[in-house]
């Protein structure tokens, strides 16, 4: 297959804004789908609100905007006008998919609910990505990724006891939902190739965050007891955790599974006498005395550089890795050096923007990405190339404020 552009020929009319939605269609754009991003002045994404060093607006410079919209086209149209709506309808008739992450009522108010769209194009796949769900008591609540994470149960079992629930420091569902969006759009396209019919997909971001804790839910349903906070530990490993290493706020991950690994670890940390100590002789004994093990192990790790710890333990087949901060991931980690790409926006030629490539590597090769579009960059392509609207008519649309 054509591994650089396997999705060539698929067209998506994308109303998504902010983060989770655009990151989803980004995956499809990076592998060849044509994503037409619908943007309006009155309904501007928060990721279009960058400010240049001189204080002027920089709609094309936000780092997240640039990450979330690679390979897409931008079309700015006033959706409140009849002419603007007509243009959208024409685009629907030549698209395979349309995506939005508005509140459930918004597309209907614009006249773009599924019932209306499928009359224009019965093969259209409409993808709604609301915060909670399309129906149900919470359907109309506006949300952010960190709120969804808290509501999914994740915060209640992450971290250390006696602390406020704090989650994992990122708006996590904003980075899992995109894959659900990409996967389910492609699944619906495969289905359509057999049935010939489109359908409406409802991807509730809360509904797709909760299944990330499927094992924990099953455990809770079976015991009726709230699972304990994780504390960096794991039932299947001991020792298991992030251990302090040499320097300020430096940590190293260590995970020991088997008796053989444990014996090796005792020798490496120069404590061979622990091997024959009954308290540590089986996984379950080690779990019982985990605090003691952590204290002993920390005495060894605290004096050694975190990269060195990982090297030593990996040489003996024990899972270990340095906890990396951003600078280290960016500049030092040998496996992340191909992950980043530098792009420049024609509107801001002096500004170097770093974007993340996709981790889905066909034939182990990582595609270079195409920079995200400038606001309205493809208006002419959409109107003239796709819809055959004449230059004269386009000028009229512009002067009437339909196209920005």
């Amino acid at each position: 297959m054509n591994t650089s552009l396997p999705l060539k020929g698929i067209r998506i009319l994308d109303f998504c804004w902010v983060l989770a939605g655009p990151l989803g269609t980004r995956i499809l754009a990076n592998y060849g789908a044509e994503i037409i991003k619908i943007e309006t002045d009155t309904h501007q994404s928060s990721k279009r609100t960058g400010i240049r060093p001189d204080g002027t607006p920089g709609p094309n410079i936000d780092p997240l905007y640039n990450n979330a919209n690679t390979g897409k086209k931008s079309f700015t149209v006033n959706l409140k006008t009849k002419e603007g709506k007509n243009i959208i309808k024409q685009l629907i008739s030549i698209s395979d998919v349309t995506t939005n992450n508005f509140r459930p009522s918004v597309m209907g108010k614009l006249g773009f609910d599924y019932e209306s769209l499928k009359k224009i194009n019965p093969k259209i796949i409409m993808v709604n990505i609301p915060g909670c769900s399309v129906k149900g008591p919470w359907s109309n609540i506006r949300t952010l990724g960190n709120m969804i994470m808290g509501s999914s149960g994740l915060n209640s079992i992450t971290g250390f006891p006696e602390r406020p629930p704090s989650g994992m420091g990122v708006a996590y569902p904003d980075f899992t939902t995109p894959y659900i969006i990409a996967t389910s759009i492609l699944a619906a396209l495969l289905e359509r190739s057999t049935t010939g019919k489109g359908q409406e997909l409802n991807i509730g971001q809360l509904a797709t965050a909760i299944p990330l804790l499927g094992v924990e839910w099953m455990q809770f349903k079976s015991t009726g007891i709230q699972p304990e906070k994780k504390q960096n530990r794991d039932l299947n490993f001991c020792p298991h955790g992030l251990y302090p290493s040499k320097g300020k706020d430096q940590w190293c991950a260590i995970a020991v599974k088997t008796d053989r690994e444990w014996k090796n670890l005792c020798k490496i940390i120069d404590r061979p006498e622990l091997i024959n100590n009954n308290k540590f002789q089986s996984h379950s004994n080690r779990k019982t005395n985990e605090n003691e093990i952590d204290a002993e192990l920390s005495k060894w790790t605290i004096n050694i550089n975190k990269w060195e710890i990982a090297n030593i333990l990996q040489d003996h087949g024990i899972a270990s890795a340095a906890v990396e901060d951003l600078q280290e991931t960016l500049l030092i980690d040998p496996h992340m050096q191909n992950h980043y790409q530098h792009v420049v926006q024609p509107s801001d030629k002096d500004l170097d923007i770093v974007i993340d490539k996709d981790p889905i590597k066909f034939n182990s090769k990582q595609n270079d990405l195409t920079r995200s579009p400038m606001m309205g960059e493809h208006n002419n392509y959409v109107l003239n190339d796709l819809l055959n609207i004449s230059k004269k008519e386009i000028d009229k649309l512009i002067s009437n404020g339909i196209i920005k």
Partner: protein
Amino acid sequence: MASLSGIKVLDMTNESGAFASRILADLGADVILIEPPQGGRIRNLAPFLDNKKGIERSLYHLHHNANKRSLILDISNDNDLKVLKKLASEIDIIIETFAPGEMAKFGLDYNTLKKINPKLIYVSITPYGQHGDWKNRTGNDLTAAASSGLVFVAGQSKDPPTQAAGDQSYKMASLAATSGVLIALIGRQSNQKNTGTYIDISIQESTSMAALQTSNANHFTRDGNIPQRPGMTRGVFKCADGKWTTLNVSSDRYKIFLNWVKDSGININIDYEMSKINTEGPMLVPKVLNFTKTLASTLNRTDFLEKAWSLDLMALPVNDFHDLKENNHLIETKQFSDVWHEHLNQTLGFSKSIVDVFEKKIRLNRAPLLGEHTNDILEEFKIKLKKNGNKE
């Protein structure tokens, strides 16, 4: 019909990739779990149902292997290996989590198999990918969270970095793998020769995508900042009944929020506070966090949320598992269901499939017993079982 009906998958994953093949199974693919005679590694992972060990009792297995079928094949046995290669010559997808180079020792690597099955889509999920200095390193969910930069920003500033519950590095890798498979299926369909491809998934790199906002590279390249804990955490607030909630006030709702503050008896000058709004939003104004803290502390969570929603503010409860169970929204939207397991003689609690987003609802079938489908599958592939146990 389901989206992937007719697609056959050989599942040779351990715990790092089982979520990927589970999603393919949910989408309707026929996922055949290849297990050694003593059962796959996942079956030995804690926690166990009722805390009793047993190859059918691992919750990790019961959750991740739902909707799949189990086939016992011992790849160290030449005869079984031959059977596996026959299967591999006919199916659509192989998904595996062996260390780089391991599958090649058995002649089960992509380059060998594509010669007998050009349409094959082959996915490998490993800690650091198939190439580079660390490709042979061993790892688990935690080491991936460490190497990806994700864990460094997670947790409270005075605590060590904090690993998320639920093996989220494995989830990130599995989600990327699944999207990769679907892209390849479409790509295969649209090329005339119907050829498949190889997909290389690094758990480290997949996990790094979850840090894309908090630890965005431009924070360092543009501003020289190295993001620290507690990351992007916005406020969580403790209500009068001891339950926790989130609240977020966007700029366009700021005045409405301030009116709520004033009505609750806190003496503020709304015009003055409006003039002090931070360009990045009200929640970055320390005073706003304090206002919210006070509001929350005077109301039970239900009342706090009702009030916030009546003002169209963004708010959701921080749920524990009891909250999830009793939540009306989740009950009405059928988030959870129970699946009967006749051999364990009890029901198992499932969350609905993560890809249950289609017009047709996704069914959940209990995970297979070890070798439950061996005979059926061998028959389907026209392989005979000899009296001595050999298959041919």
